[in-house]
C-alpha cells in the first residue's frame, strides 16, 4: 500500500497542470482515486459527508457480482464437458470456464474504459467511475459463445451512444450494460438467441453426445416443451444453460444480500419487481390460456434472467426511478413486463432486458408524477391548515 502511494506521489507532479504529461491528468486521476479515497473535501456550502464515495459504492456492486461470475465460470465448463459426455475434475471444469469467461471480461473492460478515457481526455473531465460495474455486467449477460469482437463493438456502442452522448455517468437514460446486450440482440440475433450458443463449443463442435440440446429453460418454454423444463431445485442451483451470470439463483441471492446489507441496492425495487413478476404470473395462471401461462410462479421467477435483472440491472441508481414511491411503481412494472413479454412474444424468449430498458425510459416520468402528486398533496394540506 505504502509503495503504491509513493509511486503515485512520484508521478503526480508530472501530470498536474504545468507538468510534462499534463494531458494525462484525468487518466492519472482516475487511477489515483480508484486506488485511494481522495483526500480533498468541499470547502464551502452545505454538503453531506459519507465515508464512501461513488467509486467505493461501485466496488460493492462488483463484489456482489463475484459469486455469480465464479459460478458462471464453473457452469460454462460444466456444460461444455456435459455436451461432450466427459467426466472431469472440478478444477478442470472451472479452469475451462475461467479461460472462456476471462477474455469476455477483459474485452468488455478494455473497450469500455478505452472509450471512457478518450472522452475524459478530450473533454478534460475526470474519468467516470460508472463503467466499473457496467464492465462486469456486460460479460455476465452474454452467452458464452458470443464472439469477442461483438462484445467490443456492443460495449463501445453502449458507452458512446448510451452514456457519453448524454453526458457521461449519472446522465444516461438507459442502463449501458443492457444497451450493450440489446445491441448484440438486435444487430447479431444469430449469436444471442437459439439453442447452440449457451454452451461453449456446441455449434460446429465435434463429439457432441446424442440427445444433447443445450436449450435454456426459456427456450424450452417458448417452444412449448414444458415437461422438459428443469425442476425448481435445479433452477435454483443453476446447473442450466444460460447467459454466464444469470444461471445460479443462489449466487444472485448472495449478491442481493450484499447489496441490501450495504444499502447500495434499493430493496424497494427488488421487492416490488419480485411482486410484479409474481402477480403477472398469477394473472396468467388464472387466465390459463396455454401451457406457458400455466407455469407455476416459482418456475417463472427462477427461469432466465429475471432475478439477475431485478437485482443488478433494475436497481441501477442512475436509470431507475429516484423517489421512494416511484421505485415501487418502477420495480413492479419491470417485473410485470418481464413476464408478460416472455409469455406473449415468441420472438423474445426473455423479456427482462426489454422490460428494464422500457421502464428506464419511463423512470423520469414516474418520478415527475410522484413529485407532482406530493406537491399538490402538501399544498392542499397547507391550504387546509391556513383556512382553519
Amino acid at each position, binding site marked *: 500500500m505504502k509503495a503504491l502511494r509513493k509511486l503515485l506521489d512520484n508521478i503526480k507532479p508530472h501530470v498536474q497542470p504545468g507538468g510534462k504529461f499534463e494531458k494525462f491528468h484525468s487518466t492519472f486521476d482516475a487511477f489515483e482515486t480508484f486506488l485511494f479515497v481522495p483526500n480533498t473535501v468541499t470547502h464551502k456550502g452545505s454538503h453531506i459527508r459519507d465515508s464512501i464515495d461513488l467509486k467505493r459504492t461501485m466496488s460493492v456492486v462488483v463484489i456482489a457480482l463475484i459469486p455469480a461470475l465464479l459460478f458462471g465460470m464453473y457452469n460454462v465448463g460444466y456444460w461444455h464437458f456435459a455436451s461432450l459426455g466427459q467426466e472431469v475434475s472440478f478444477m478442470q471444469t472451472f479452469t475451462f470456464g475461467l479461460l472462456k469467461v476471462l477474455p469476455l471480461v477483459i474485452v468488455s473492460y478494455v473497450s469500455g474504459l478505452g472509450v471512457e478515457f478518450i472522452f475524459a481526455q478530450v473533454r478534460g473531465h475526470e474519468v467516470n467511475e460508472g463503467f466499473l460495474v457496467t464492465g462486469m455486467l456486460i460479460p455476465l449477460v452474454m452467452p458464452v459463445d458470443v*464472439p469477442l*469482437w*461483438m462484445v467490443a*463493438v456492443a460495449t463501445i456502442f453502449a458507452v458512446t*451512444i448510451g452514456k457519453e*452522448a448524454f453526458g457521461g455517468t449519472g446522465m444516461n437514460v438507459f442502463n449501458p450494460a443492457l444497451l450493450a446486450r440489446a*445491441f448484440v440482440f*438486435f*444487430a*447479431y*440475433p*444469430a*449469436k444471442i438467441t437459439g439453442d447452440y450458443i449457451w454452451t461453449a463449443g456446441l455449434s460446429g463442435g465435434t463429439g457432441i453426445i446424442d440427445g444433447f440440446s443445450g436449450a435454456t429453460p426459456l427456450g424450452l418454454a417458448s417452444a412449448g416443451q414444458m415437461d422438459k423444463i428443469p425442476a425448481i431445485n435445479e433452477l435454483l442451483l443453476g446447473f442450466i444453460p444460460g447467459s454466464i451470470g444469470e444461471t445460479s439463483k443462489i449466487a444472485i441471492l448472495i449478491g442481493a444480500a450484499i447489496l441490501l446489507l450495504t444499502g447500495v441496492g434499493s430493496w424497494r425495487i427488488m421487492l416490488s419487481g419480485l411482486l410484479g413478476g409474481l402477480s403477472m404470473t398469477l394473472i396468467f395462471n388464472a387466465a390459463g390460456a396455454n401451457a406457458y401461462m400455466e407455469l407455476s410462479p416459482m418456475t417463472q421467477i427462477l427461469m432466465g434472467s429475471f432475478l439477475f435483472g431485478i437485482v443488478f440491472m433494475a436497481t441501477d441508481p442512475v436509470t431507475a426511478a429516484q423517489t421512494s414511491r416511484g421505485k415501487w411503481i418502477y420495480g413492479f412494472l419491470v417485473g410485470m413486463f418481464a413476464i408478460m413479454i416472455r409469455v406473449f412474444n415468441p420472438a423474445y424468449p426473455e423479456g427482462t432486458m426489454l422490460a428494464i430498458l422500457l421502464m428506464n425510459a419511463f423512470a423520469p416520468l414516474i418520478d415527475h408524477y410522484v413529485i407532482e402528486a406530493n406537491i399538490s398533496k402538501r399544498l392542499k394540506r397547507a391550504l387546509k391548515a391556513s383556512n382553519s
Partner: protein
Amino acid sequence: MSEDKNTREPMFSAKIVKILTRPFNLENPITVQVLGICSALAVTVQMKPAIVMALSVTVVTAFSNLIISTLRNTIPSRIRIIVQLVVVAALVIIVDQVLKAYVYDVSKKLSVFVGLIITNCILMGRLEAFAMAQKPWPSFVDGIGNGIGYGLILITVGFFRELLGSGKIFGIDVVPQFLYDAGYVSNGLMILPPMALITIGVIIWLQRSKNRELIDKS
C-alpha cells in the same frame, strides 16, 4: 428586393453561390433545421434509393421554388398554401412517373416516400421562407442547394447503413470474404430505422463539435 429591377446581377454572383452552399453545412435542412427526417430514416437502408430520393427532392424543390417564386406576386396570401401544394403535387407526380418509367425497381423500393415528398417539410419550408419573397433565379438556386444539402446527409447515412448493415455499396459486396470466414457478421441493427436516427444523431454531433456556433444555447 431593394435593388433596381433593371440592373442585372451576374448569374453566379457571390450572393448566389452563398445561397447555393449555405444549406450544405451551416443551414443544412436535416441536421440543423431538422426537416425531412421521416424520409431520411426510411429510404437510407441502401445507397441507390438514397441517391434517387435525393435527386427527386432536389428536382422538386428547385422547380417548385422557381414556379412559386414566379407566381409570388399573383398568389393571394390567404390561399398560398393550397397553391403551393398544387404546384408541388404536380411536380411530384411527374417525378414519380419518370422514376416508374426508368428505374422501376428503385421506385418500388421508395414506394410511398416519393409521393410523400409533397409533405416533406423542407419543401414547404423553402417555399414559405424563401420563394415567396425572392426572385425566381435565387429561389431556383436555393431549391437546388437545399436538395443537395438533404441529399448529402441521405447519402452519408445510406453509405454507412449499407456498408455496415449488408456489407455492400450500391449492391456490390465490398466486405472481403476472408472477413466473413473469420467470423464477421453484418450488423442487423443498421438495417432497422432506429439506427438511421442514431447515425443522423452522430452526424449532428460531429457537425456541431466542428461548428460550435450551431450549438443551441439554453
